[in-house]
C-alpha cells in the first residue's frame, strides 16, 4: 500500500508530529510519501527513516492557512491512504482532502494498526470507537499518541508549484492578550491550594500551565483567603470540571473540592502529607513538597519531544 502524509506547517524545520506520522505509516507497511505544504523542513523530512519521497509544495495559496485551496492544490499528488496530525489545521485540511477525493475521513485516532484498524476516543473520552476501514481514506492521528520514527533516512526531494489562488485574506494578527483558559473548558487543569503557602506562588502554576496549555484552578480556601477570582474556583461551590488531566498541587482534598474534580479522567496530586485525602482519588500521587516536585515535573514536561 501507499501512504501520503501531509506535514503540519512549520516556520522552520519539521513539526514534531511528522516523525510520528511516518512511524504510523511504516506500521501500515508500504511506501511513504510526505507532502510539505509551503513552509520548510523538506531536508529534515527526507532524513526521517522510512520516508520514501518528499514533495514540497509552493505557491501563493500557501502564504496563509486556507484548507480549501491547499487541498485543491494537493489532490493530484496524493496517493493511497492519507495521514495528518490531528491538530486543528490538520483536521480541517484532512476533512477538505477527503471531500476533495470523495472518501471518508477519520479524525483524531489514538491507535492505528494494519487492516486498517483504528481507535479513537469519543464522547470526550467516555467511550472508544473501534473502526476498520479500507485503505481509501484520510486519517488524522492525535499528536503524541505514537512513538516517533528515528532519523537516518535519505529520501528523494521534489517540489511542485501550485497555481491555486487563496480565497481569504489575513488582515492583521491580533496579539493574543495572554488570554487565560477557563477551567470549565480546559482539557488540562492545574490547581493550587493552601499548600502553596502564598498567592504569589500561583505564578509557578501559571508557568507549568502555559507549557501544557492548561487552565489554572484553585480550591475554595485560597480563593476566599487570597482573594483570587471566583472563576478559578473548583469544587462544590465553584466549577465542576471533568478535564482529561487534573493536577492538584498543595490541595489536601476536602470533600467539597473532590466534588468538583473527581470525575476528571486522570488526577495527579502533589502533596507532602502522605495521608492527604486527595491521594484517595489520585491516579498518580507524588508525596513531596511542591517546591521540589513542581519544577521537576515542569522540566520533565518541557523535555518531552
Amino acid at each position, binding site marked *: 500500500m501507499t501512504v501520503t502524509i501531509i506535514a503540519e506547517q512549520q516556520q522552520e524545520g519539521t513539526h514534531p508530529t511528522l516523525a510520528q506520522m511516518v512511524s504510523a505509516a511504516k506500521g501500515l507497511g508500504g511506501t511513504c510519501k510526505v507532502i510539505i505544504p509551503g513552509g520548510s523542513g523538506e531536508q529534515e523530512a527526507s532524513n526521517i527513516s522510512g520516508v520514501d519521497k518528499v514533495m514540497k509544495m509552493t505557491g501563493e495559496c500557501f502564504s496563509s492557512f486556507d484548507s480549501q485551496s491547499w487541498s485543491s492544490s494537493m489532490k493530484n499528488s496524493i496517493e493511497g491512504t492519507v495521514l495528518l496530525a490531528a491538530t486543528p489545521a490538520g483536521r480541517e485540511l484532512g476533512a*477538505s482532502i477527503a*471531500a*476533495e477525493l470523495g472518501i*471518508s475521513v477519520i479524525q483524531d485516532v489514538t491507535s492505528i494498526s494494519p487492516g486498517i484498524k483504528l481507535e479513537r476516543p469519543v464522547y470526550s473520552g467516555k467511550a472508544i470507537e473501534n*473502526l476498520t476501514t479500507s485503505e481509501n481514506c484520510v486519517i488524522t492521528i492525535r499528536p503524541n499518541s505514537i512513538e516517533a520514527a528515528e532519523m537516518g533516512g535519505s529520501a528523494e526531494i521534489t517540489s511542485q508549484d501550485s497555481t491555486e489562488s487563496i480565497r481569504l485574506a489575513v488582515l492583521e494578527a491580533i496579539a493574543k492578550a495572554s488570554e487565560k483558559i477557563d477551567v470549565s473548558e480546559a482539557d488540562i487543569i492545574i490547581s493550587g491550594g493552601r499548600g502553596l503557602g502564598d498567592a504569589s506562588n500561583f505564578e509557578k502554576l501559571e508557568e507549568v500551565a502555559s507549557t501544557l496549555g492548561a487552565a489554572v484552578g484553585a480550591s475554595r480556601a485560597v480563593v476566599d483567603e487570597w482573594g483570587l477570582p471566583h472563576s478559578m474556583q473548583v469544587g462544590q461551590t465553584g466549577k465542576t470540571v471533568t478535564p482529561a488531566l487534573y493536577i492538584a498541587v498543595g490541595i489536601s482534598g476536602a470533600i467539597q473540592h473532590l466534588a468538583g474534580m473527581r470525575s476528571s*479522567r486522570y488526577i495527579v496530586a502533589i502533596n507532602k502529607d502522605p495521608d492527604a485525602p486527595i491521594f484517595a482519588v489520585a491516579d498518580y*500521587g*507524588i508525596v513531596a513538597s511542591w517546591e521540589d516536585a513542581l519544577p521537576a515535573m515542569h522540566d520533565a514536561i518541557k*523535555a*518531552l519531544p
Partner: protein
Amino acid sequence: MKAAVLIKQVPDTTAKIDISGGEVDESGIAKWSISPYDEYALESALQMQKDVGATVVAITLGPDRASKSLVDAAAVGADELVHISHEGAIGSFALQTALAEAVKRVGADVVLAGKQAADTNAGSTASGVAKILNWPCVGLVSKIDASEGEFEATRSTVAGLERVSVSSPCVFAFDKGEDKLRIPNVRGIMMAKKKPVQKHTMADLEVDASNGGITESSVTYPPQKPPGQKFEGASSAPEVVSRLRDEANVI
C-alpha cells in the same frame, strides 16, 4: 442574505454514556442538546440576522429525535428549519454531501457550523461541506462581522488570533464564540413548535448514504485505569510525567 447553520444533536455533555452490544445505549441518555460549538455558530448567525437582516436556516441531519434541536434553534430565532432524516451510521463524505445539497437547496450564501461535535469530536463537517460546495472555509472562528456579501472574522491559529476577510459564499467553523449565547424565551418556544420543518431523506437529496470505506465500527468503554499509584519524593516527577504520556495519554 441567507445563513445556514449546521447543527447536530448530541447527548448533553454531562450525560453518562452507557454502552451495550458495541453501541451507545441511547435509552440511557436523559438529555439531548445542540452541540456546544454549534450553538456559537447559531448565535453568530442570529447576530447576522440582526445586523444585516440575514435569514437564518437551521439544518440538522439525524434520526427523528434530532428535530428537537431544530425547535431549540427556532426558539432562539432561527427562521427556517430543515431536517435530513437518517438513522444509524453514515460516512463523513455522505453526510457532508447531504448537508451541502441541503445548503444549495435553501439557497444559502454562508454556512456556519461548530468546529467539532461533542459526541464524535471529529471536526470534519464544515471543511468537507466547504469543499463539496467549492467555497472557502475559515476554521476556529470566534467572531464574525458581516456586511452584505463580505465578512471579517477572527480566527485562532497556532500563532495566535488573526483577522481574516472573506467574501460570500463561504463556510465558517466555530470555536467558542465571543458573543454570549442568548437565553431562549418562552414566546419563542411556543412559536418554535409551530414552525414548519422541511423534511428531506438521503434519497430525495440523491445521496448514497453508505458508510464510506468503514467496514466495521463499534464502541467500547475506555480501558480500566490502573489503580492509583503513589510515588515518594520529587525525583519521581519525571516518572509520573512519562506515565501521563505513555499510560494515560493525556499530555
